[in-house]
């Protein structure tokens, strides 16, 4: 009873706060602040056609490094807990058709993921969506069997390699131009082509591999903690 009243009170306070904001809201019609600067100078500064990727990788690259660290710690906690306390009793085998689909389809999905990751400066996509699609390909392999795939042993190595690559690409900017993650270290090239926009495609690839290996590690830990039947 007291709990229900308390919940009602909290929701009422929140609704009142939200209602008091409504008269001050008005529709935005012009860019302002940081968004205006990014839209005006983004293409000249970074050479990336996709302004969202320019913001993620070039302007706010240090923040992205922090986000990757948060993701890393969450994934590591999941893997640690699941390896310390085994749960579950082992999965059943899939049917013939599902097992064979899981052998055929991961290759096109992986191709799609690599396309989205490496073309992040030309079309929608980028490290985070590409990485989750790569993890989905790994997941399809795992749904089509009742054991952990053999390739999951190299996941920690991939994760360390991609994280180190991200850091070293940033330090390269520090050493040559005096700025962390400056993407002009190899020139921005001709915008609109695949080889352009400095180190943005490389950093996107590093982010994608890191996200993919972390999510794949979570799935492999879930599967291993049940024990193979």
């Amino acid at each position: 009873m007291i709990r229900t009243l308390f919940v009602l009170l909290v929701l009422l306070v929140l609704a009142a706060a939200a209602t008091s904001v409504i008269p001050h809201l008005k529709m935005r019609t012009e860019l302002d602040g940081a968004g205006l600067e990014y839209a005006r100078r983004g293409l000249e500064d970074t050479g990336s056609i996709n302004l969202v990727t320019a913001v993620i990788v070039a302007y706010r690259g240090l923040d992205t490094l922090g986000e990757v660290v948060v993701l890393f710690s969450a994934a590591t906690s999941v893997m640690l807990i699941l390896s310390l306390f085994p749960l579950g009793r082992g999965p059943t085998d899939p049917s013939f058709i599902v097992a064979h689909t899981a052998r055929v389809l991961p290759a096109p999905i992986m191709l799609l993921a690599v396309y989205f990751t490496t073309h992040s400066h030309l079309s929608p996509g980028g490290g985070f969506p590409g990485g989750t699609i790569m993890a989905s390909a790994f997941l399809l392999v795992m749904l089509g069997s009742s054991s952990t795939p053999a390739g999951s042993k190299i996941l920690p190595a991939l994760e360390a390699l991609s994280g180190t690559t991200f850091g070293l690409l940033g330090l390269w900017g520090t050493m040559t131009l005096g700025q962390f993650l400056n993407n002009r270290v190899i020139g921005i090239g001709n915008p609109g082509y695949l080889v352009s926009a400095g180190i943005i495609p490389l950093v996107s690839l590093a982010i994608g591999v890191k996200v993919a290996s972390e999510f794949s590690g979570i799935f492999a830990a879930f599967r291993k903690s049940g024990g193979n039947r």
Partner: protein
Amino acid sequence: MNPSLASALAVFLGGMMLAASVVVLFVRDLLSAIIITGMISLSASVLFLLMDATDVAITEASIGAVLATLIFLWGKGKMGGRE
């Protein structure tokens, strides 16, 4: 985007999302609640595309359709019968 078409789609999808989110809290079966949450994420992806956020739409489609649903399903399977 044509304003009237975008408005009609937004009212349609938004109404569906709100109705589904209330149903998630009150449906008896936990598996059904997980499935309906996946549908909310997918509708949110269409709304992101209507708001011209293409990258966010791709991310939400891949996360909401597969990864979040799968993690909750796996957790429910690990829990066994304790509900």
